[in-house]
């Protein structure tokens, strides 16, 4: 293996077409005879549909069909994407009620406005409190049509106990415990206790959900282009709704303009059914407002928690009552949140009870490390507060209790190979931490937090072939969200002995590509990488076998360098890869083509941890926060491409700033989203960036990932909000328990403090 290319900051292979606007995304797909679709969505959070008239809408020139629930198969809506079109009741504002199909997008939009729906509004439970009231309106009065599948897709099988539910709006429960929490709290010298809340937050990928489906009248199946992270999962679900074998559905693996967990499946089954109905390709691209109203954002959380400690800082007991608002379907990352909250630290007595409550809102989806930013905000605020009150060093107290590899998680299973302690040590040595006293003297606050993600696994395969021109083609079926293709190129080049320019990654479709799971759960490189390595090594062996014959040398004496196979020590005695490949692809040729496969299934997770430091100052008059520094330390196992890795670290932390300071989907009492545009919902902007964002890559290799690499995408968003909250506590002496920490909340808190002081 020539390793020079591993660890190089190679620019992204699709960077150029991306920034020059030449990449073909799903909304760019046009097909002959293609029909445009627009949703008619419910303006009410909860209502009976009394009547629905399409007469007037149908008269709009260009309208082809207007579909309603009557045109849909009567499948039980086990899941949000099987709601298709509302039958007689709507359960969130934004729920599709009808689908207009027309020759142009404009005609579809005009007609959608003319579909007349008569609703009888019903009371809606919008908040957790309302949904848990004894007489609350019930989201599923006849019981849940079925459980969500997306949680499993994120590798969130966490094995907590479940409890019998007591309220029809409670969708799932989880209970983790160890030791005797009551005794632990009794023995504690101090107990910090708060109720933390975090709001619904949207992933805000730039490209909205977009889907084009071409029906296949021959098979009853379809060909699908869709902006998804999970093409094979889409194939499974579309085949199911169309009632055809999966083999009759072909899903293209498209470039995705951002997903962050929000793009697994949503309206694909509906559009597949519509395409079959009209016998023409159908295209749906959501508007930004539809994204906000009817996407699948991250759920709100409320958590009452207590942490008890000895005077010397020994953490004794953690007790938490954790509630997620899952919207209209069980969909929140309850188990994983509870597991992480109780497992970062070795605390002898833990009792965490979790509930997911259903409300009349869209169901939630995954969002970068689903559940982890919320859980981490809770535990990292508590630990910080213990340190603050006992005047202990917040880094030391964390180091003392941080879980080491093999330590038990709160579900009893051991933590895998991970670098939690290592990232803390790296932060301890960082100039920003060392200079904290100086920063404080300037009136700044310095706060730290840790957080991580267990990492997902899934079987995966890859194929590899050598072309006549000496180029190595790698075939994969995974969506590239984060630069994985570029890392694949580097790995293949290093292992095979080629310059990276001579490696091409070909992303196929579900018919042609080897299986890969959804690009999510920080597992694409982690699971596909080993398959790819196996395929490339095998292809290399095939090449060497041929070369050995042609060069009349022993295989062991051969090496591949810069596109040539040569006899070690006799570099003149060589053959180019193109020469070898051409002998495998010609009339009457002697050798079989170079074609190799790699397969991989390993259920061992390799958790990824990040430690972060925020340095802030606050304008005490206006409550405006200034972020001076944000240090993002992360254990990535092995940074195959540090440029891509740093990009992930910066992007994750930037989204963490949104969690901390700006982002919230705010619903009014009727369940109307009042922050449904980007004028009302603030994705962090340049002005919210810290003056300095510093990334520190830590490499604690894992035996299970390719070349030691572990999942990178999710960890960097996890601790940011907690780190900023802790920095604000350091600056102001006020503990913030509600995200986002807005200037108004800061001014209010300062005034309260002045009042009570």
């Amino acid at each position, binding site marked *: 293996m020539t390793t020079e290319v591993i660890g190089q900051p190679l620019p992204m292979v699709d960077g150029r077409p991306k920034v020059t606007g030449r990449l073909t995304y799903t909304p760019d797909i046009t097909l002959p005879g293609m029909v445009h679709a627009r949703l008619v969505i419910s303006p009410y959070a909860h209502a009976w549909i009394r009547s629905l008239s399409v007469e007037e809408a149908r008269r709009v020139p260009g309208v082809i069909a207007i579909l309603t629930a009557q045109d849909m198969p009567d499948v039980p809506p086990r899941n949000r994407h099987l709601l298709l079109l509302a039958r007689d009741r709507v359960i969130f504002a934004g729920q599709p009620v009808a689908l207009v199909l027309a020759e142009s997008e*404009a005609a579809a939009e005009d007609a959608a406005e003319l579909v007349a729906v008569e609703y009888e509004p019903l009371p809606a439970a919008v908040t957790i409190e309302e949904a848990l009231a004894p007489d609350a309106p019930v989201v599923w009065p006849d019981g849940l049509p079925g459980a969500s599948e997306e949680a499993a897709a994120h590798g969130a099988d966490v094995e907590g106990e479940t409890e019998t539910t007591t309220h029809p709006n409670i969708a799932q429960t989880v209970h983790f415990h160890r030791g005797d929490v009551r005794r632990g709290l009794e023995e504690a010298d101090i107990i910090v206790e708060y109720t933390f809340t975090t709001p619904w937050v949207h992933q805000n990928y730039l490209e909205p959900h977009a889907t084009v489906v071409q029906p296949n009248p021959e098979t009853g199946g379809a060909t699908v282009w869709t902006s998804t992270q999970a093409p094979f999962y889409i194939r499974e679900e579309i085949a199911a709704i169309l009632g055809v074998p999966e083999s009759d559905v072909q899903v293209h693996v498209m470039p995705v303009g951002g997903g962050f967990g929000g793009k697994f499946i949503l309206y694909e089954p509906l559009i597949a059914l519509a395409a079959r109905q009209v016998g023409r390709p159908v295209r749906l691209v959501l508007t930004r407002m539809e994204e906000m109203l009817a996407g699948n954002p991250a759920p709100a959380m409320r958590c009452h928690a207590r942490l008890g400690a000895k005077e010397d800082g020994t953490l004794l007991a953690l007790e938490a009552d954790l509630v997620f608002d899952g919207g209209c379907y069980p969909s929140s990352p309850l188990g994983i949140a509870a597991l992480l909250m109780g497992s970062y630290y070795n605390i002898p007595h833990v009792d965490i009870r979790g509930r997911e409550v259903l409300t009349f809102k869209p169901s939630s989806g995954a969002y970068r490390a689903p559940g982890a930013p919320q859980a981490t905000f809770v535990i990292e605020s508590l630990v910080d507060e213990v340190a603050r009150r006992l005047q202990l060093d917040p880094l030391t107290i964390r180091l003392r209790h941080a879980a080491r590899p093999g330590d038990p998680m709160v579900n009893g299973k051991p933590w895998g190979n991970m670098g939690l302690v290592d990232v803390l040590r790296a932060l301890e040595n960082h100039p920003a931490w060392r200079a904290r006293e100086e920063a404080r003297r300037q009136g700044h606050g310095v706060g730290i937090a840790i957080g991580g993600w267990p990492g997902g696994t899934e079987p995966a395969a890859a194929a590899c072939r050598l072309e006549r021109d000496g180029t190595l083609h790698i075939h994969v079926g995974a969506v590239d969200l984060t630069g994985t293709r570029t890392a694949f190129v580097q790995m293949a080049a290093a292992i095979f002995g080629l310059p990276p320019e001579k490696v091409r990654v070909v992303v196929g479709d579900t018919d042609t590509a080897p299986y890969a799971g959804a690009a999510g759960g920080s597992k694409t490189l982690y699971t596909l990488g080993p398959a790819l390595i196996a395929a490339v090594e095998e292809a290399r062996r095939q090449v060497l076998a041929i070369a050995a014959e042609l060069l009349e040398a022993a295989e062991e004496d051969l090496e591949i360098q810069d596109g040539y196979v040569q006899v070690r020590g006799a570099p003149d005695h060589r053959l180019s890869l193109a020469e070898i490949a051409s002998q495998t692809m010609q009339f009457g040729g002697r050798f079989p083509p170079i074609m190799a496969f790699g397969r991989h299934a390993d259920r061992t997770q390799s958790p990824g941890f990040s430690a972060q430091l925020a340095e802030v100052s606050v304008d005490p008059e*206006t409550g405006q926060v200034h972020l001076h520094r944000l240090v993002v330390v992360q254990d990535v196992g092995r940074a195959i491409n540090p440029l891509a890795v740093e990009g992930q670290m910066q992007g994750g932390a930037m989204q963490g700033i949104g969690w901390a300071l*700006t982002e919230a989907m705010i619903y009014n009492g009727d369940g109307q989203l009042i922050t449904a545009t980007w004028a*009302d919902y*603030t994705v962090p902007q340049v002005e919210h960036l810290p003056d300095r964002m510093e990334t520190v890559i830590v490499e604690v290799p894992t035996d299970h990932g390719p070349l030691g690499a572990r999942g990178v995408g999710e960890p960097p968003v996890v601790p940011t909000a907690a780190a900023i909250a802790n920095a604000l506590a350091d600056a102001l002496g006020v503990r913030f328990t509600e995200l986002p920490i807005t200037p*108004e909340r800061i001014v209010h808190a300062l005034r309260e403090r002045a009042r009570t002081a």
Partner: protein
Amino acid sequence: MPRWETYHLATTVEDALNFLAVYQGEATVIAGGTDLMIDLETGEVPLPRGVVDITRVKELQVLRREGKYVVVGAGVTHSRIVTSSLLQVEAPCLVEACGVIGGPQVRNMGTLGGNVAHALPAADGTVALVALEAEAQVARRTAEGQVVRTWHPITSLFLGPGRSAVDSTRELIVAFRFPARRPREGSAFDRIMRPQGVALPILGVAARVQLTPDGQHFQRACLCIGPAGPVPFRARQAEAVLVGQPVGEETLAQAVTAALEEARLRTSRHRATREYRQEMLRVLLRRVIPKAVERARTWKGVDTP
């Protein structure tokens, strides 16, 4: 969204008004379109049959000193205002206000005329113009087809939130004018933005003050606050408190108290509470007035009181 029938690029004020006249109230003016296009999308403004684009009308692009006035054409974009060296001297509060509107794209497209014609009580450019005691020249076509232009105090243009006295389906704002900087005069603007959102602020304040020749007292003061009621609000009581009083903490405190009393600050749910707005009014007045005073002191003309 359905579209209009005709889009007309007017070259003169007369041309634009003639076009509007033909459509008899069913056509409207578009400048940068940064407000209008959104209002059309949301249905807040009914779809017009005709649209007349006034960005090519030369007369609306004027930006110069004319005698004792500074004249700014209604079609001047925020970007031009921000980079105008004339306005940096004459009306820093207008430069500061237009400089924070939207982002660069919005500032490149949006115009001062559109900002005023949209008639929101917290529009930043508007708040600054009120503090400058600007006037607006409105052009309309008489029944006989003649074009008449008249000057109106800017405050007379606002009827309520989003309701302008200028009927953009028949009339045109041509330009704004305000007195050139007087001796020992300075102005300033500042605002508090919502953490959620990019468009309108939680609160904006503009001040223009003139000092007495000794530089120790307020001779004139003009304060505008938005939103503090249905139209841009002039804090006349606070102004009265300032005039004649010595520059200093005591006067400032009295002015703040007066402003808090007269301003009608409201809670807008999930945006800002009344209490927070009160707090911010205090903060802004304490920032803006001293800054205007500081600028007044940098005036370098020959003092002829």
